[in-house]
């Protein structure tokens, strides 16, 4: 069985709202890419990271959702299939951002530090 966007379950209002937010949200950013490239270059060439480097902030996904509908994250929607999708997205995005922060930290720990990171 394949559940797709056209399925009946996705026709609820909740789903509609949710999809709208997801399609407008920039779930990923180019910042992460450039930061990773910088880390790579600095490790390869043993050069310190550039100063005033900022780790990307986690995208405030839930705030956007709540702006649309206050109850959108209430527990009564937990049976919605999209709810799990949202959870995975939110958690994994948070994890990735956390990992990038940690990467920067470790890279600075092995000596490629600058005065101010993050």
């Amino acid at each position, binding site marked *: 069985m394949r559940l797709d966007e056209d399925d009946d379950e*996705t026709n609820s209002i909740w789903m509609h709202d949710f999809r709208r937010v997801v399609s407008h949200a920039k779930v*990923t950013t*180019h910042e992460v890419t450039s930061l990773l490239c910088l*880390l790579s*270059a600095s490790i*390869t060439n043993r050069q310190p990271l550039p100063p005033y480097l900022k780790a990307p902030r986690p995208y405030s996904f839930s705030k956007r959702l709540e702006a649309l509908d206050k109850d959108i994250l209430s527990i009564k929607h937990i049976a919605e299939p*999209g709810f799990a999708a949202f*959870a995975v997205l939110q958690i994994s995005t948070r994890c990735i951002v956390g990992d990038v922060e940690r*990467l920067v930290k470790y890279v600075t720990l092995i000596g490629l530090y600058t005065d101010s990171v993050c």
Partner: protein
Amino acid sequence: MEQLLYSTGKTVLEFVQFADEVVAKGKLSRTRLIIPGAKRSWKWAKTFLNVEDNHGDDNMGDVHTHNNMLELGEAYRHRKDPEHLPPNTWFEKFGDKIRVFPWFLRSFESKYGFRVACATMTIAIVAFLHDTQSFFTKQRLVWATIMVNMSMSPTSGQSIFSFVLRIAGTTIAMVATLLIWYIPDQKTPGIIVLLFLFISAAFYVPIRMFRLRAIGIIGIVTSTMIIGYELQVRKVGEKVATSNGQAFYPIYLLAPYRLATVAGGIAVAFLWTFFPYPISEHSVLRQSLGASLYLLANYYSIIHETLSARMRGDEGDLNLKTSSGRKLEKARHKVFSKQMLMLNGLRTYSDFLRWEVPIGGRFPKKQYDSIIVCVEKYVFLDHIRQTVLTKSLLVSSAISVCLVMPLIP
């Protein structure tokens, strides 16, 4: 979860259908040689030719990671030379061809080759000088020469590891040959049977303990050579055997002599691993890590583009080869498999670090290991995101959540 199961099931079904098709064609009913198809051969030929002229390669990533040639994509392969513009006139083009030679000599591989040549010549010089020539032949120093270039490897930790293995292998072989020789009371048939048993048993090591394979192979080769020589002398007589300048030794002397030449060869190799400057695992690990982070950036941006394309709805038909979605998918798989290879290499190097002689401050192994773990987790997370978002935009499952849960810091 349905989505994941669905795609797994679909792939398996395709595979089964393919297998059925092959059976139906009758290809499996007779034994035949499998020859790669024309398309595959053409691809191989193309990559073979490509490798020869990509002299702009800066060897990132493919720094001897177990012979896995990794190409890190356009940005790394065709890196523009900041000191030279692309050639325009024929004279400039000709000059560019000349520049290939210094590039070749400057490469890491040639430097290492020069080092091995120096190490080999350190022993081989004995054979080329008039005064010591007969000594070289008499004492079988040629085995030490062979040992030098067989046991050297580019990074020092790996070298020390292989030195230990080779000395251990020779010691085991020495003990074993003495046992094989004296247990059957020096009778030829008994010796041959025991040697056969020993060799069969010794093959257990290269087959089951692949990391320690050098012990097994060296043990087999050395014991066969020692016993073979002794049996040969017994057959042809001492006079013929010594006619080439090699002195005859009885087995209780020959076996320790063999160990001594191996140890001598390895000592020289050891010296030349460290002498001008050691190529440590540290720098190789660092460079591979840099390359791996670059790949990670690559992977991330591919996923980013896939997601945006999916949300804009301009991925096109995935069954068409030219659609952007298909191209992205191909690129994604390529980078993903490269990253997996890279991570494997990283872990191997991290393991070899233990064998390195620590000189100076300690290596921040813990930090490096944490970076490697971070990269692994990252790839995994990106993979999940991609699966959740691209395959079916809004369907996911508690399973994915469970997968992610343990990773939360």
